């Protein structure tokens, strides 16, 4: 992690940084540009920062929200992590990609490629065949091996189908 853990903002953003580190990734986020509002974190840029006052509702890049000590990432943050070469990423096949955004877990046989760590209990980004980030999940067990593996390999934690669920 290349993050200067200094200042009040960095303290507040600890859950965010802890979350990012779970993906075996190094992202340089400037704590001076991270703003927190009601548990929601936003990454500003030098243009937006001087214009923000405490009453803002949304600003810059939404990173996610912290609630009860847990961090819920935005899909912008996940896609930023997915662009980092060494991040834990798993590419799944087309059918499984559709099921994943419907909230389903990933079967071992649906995994096409693995990048980064794939140890049991770690978090991994889940990508479709085009390399687009669909969300993330937790690795439950062996992710390689028999092509016909019908076991659940990745538990769905969050997927972009959430945009539709929020509207209900």
């Amino acid at each position, binding site marked *: 992690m290349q993050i200067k853990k200094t200042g009040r903002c960095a303290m507040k953003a600890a859950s965010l940084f802890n979350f990012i580190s779970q993906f075996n990734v190094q992202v340089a986020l400037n704590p001076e540009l991270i703003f927190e509002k009601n548990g929601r974190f936003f990454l500003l*840029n030098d*243009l*937006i920062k001087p*214009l*923000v006052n405490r*009453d*803002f*509702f*949304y*600003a*810059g*890049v*939404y990173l996610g929200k912290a609630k009860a000590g847990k961090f819920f990432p*935005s*899909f*912008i943050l996940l*896609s930023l992590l997915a662009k980092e070469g060494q991040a834990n990423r798993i590419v799944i096949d087309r059918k499984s*990609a*559709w099921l994943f*955004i419907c909230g389903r877990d990933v079967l071992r046989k649906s995994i096409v490629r693995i990048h980064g760590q794939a140890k049991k209990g770690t978090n991994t980004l889940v990508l*479709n065949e*085009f390399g*687009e980030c*669909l969300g993330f999940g937790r690795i439950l067990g062996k992710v390689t091996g028999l092509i016909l593996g019908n076991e659940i390999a990745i538990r769905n934690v969050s997927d*972009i*189908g959430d*945009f*539709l669920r*929020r*509207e209900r």
Partner: protein
Amino acid sequence: MGLMSGKDFFIDRYQQLGWKYRETKLRQTIRINETNAKGKNLVDRLEHLGVSLEKIPFLKSGYWVQSSKVSVGATAEYLLGFYSIQEAAAQIPVSLFTRLKGKFVLDASAAPGGKTVQLANLMENTGIIVALDVEKRRLSALSNHLERCHVRNTLVYLLDARLSSNLKFKFHRILIDAPCSGNFASDPVWFKNRTLKDVERNSALQRQILTKAVECLADDGELIYSTCSLEPEEDELNIDWAIKNLKLSIEEISCHGEKGLTEIFGTKLDPLVERCKRLWPGETQGFFVCKLKKRGVVL
């Protein structure tokens, strides 16, 4: 109130304005978010999913959905922000701004955010958009839209557009997609629910928004005013009032639509009001749009 409302009342008004009423069934329309979809072969990908598209000739990134085997609002490509569902006429106002990259832009009535996302796309996420809306519930929808489409340059406030000058900013570009009475083509119970009183109330609100927005428009700035109302009180009559009272000029625009009306129920308006565009329902919903600038500013 019976005489100032109802289908017959409004149809008669449209006839007096030179348009013969006909029922309209709108086609679903999408707009490709070009910045996000760059290099994605999006049209091919959607066709592969069973979505048949037809390019809309008068829009840069708009497509009609001819048929679809899947819900267009639930594909991975939609959820990844590669396109938005946005009615054809609603895609016009933002496209009328010039040189948006790096600019400081006000979206005065932003929710649910279709036009905000379009702005961010054309700005390629440079500059700043300040997006306002007066309803918190609608701001949540706006925020979801911004997140889905990976917008990075927007600052959102829960604020009435009539208070926009309180921000003390000067904007290079201002979009007033004004709260309006809507139109029958996009609202099946429109004739039942709307009265002339609603129209007049909205017209007054729109004038207040215009007045305050002009106060925060940079001297060389561009202001786009649009409504999805067919009622001239919210359209040509407001713009005629604006050029007479707010020192604004109407710019020539080139887009789909007919010339703005310059005679409304016997009242003659400034001839330059014809530079506005009026879209009667048909290929699109009903719509009105114009571009305004400050008059007499020596730059």
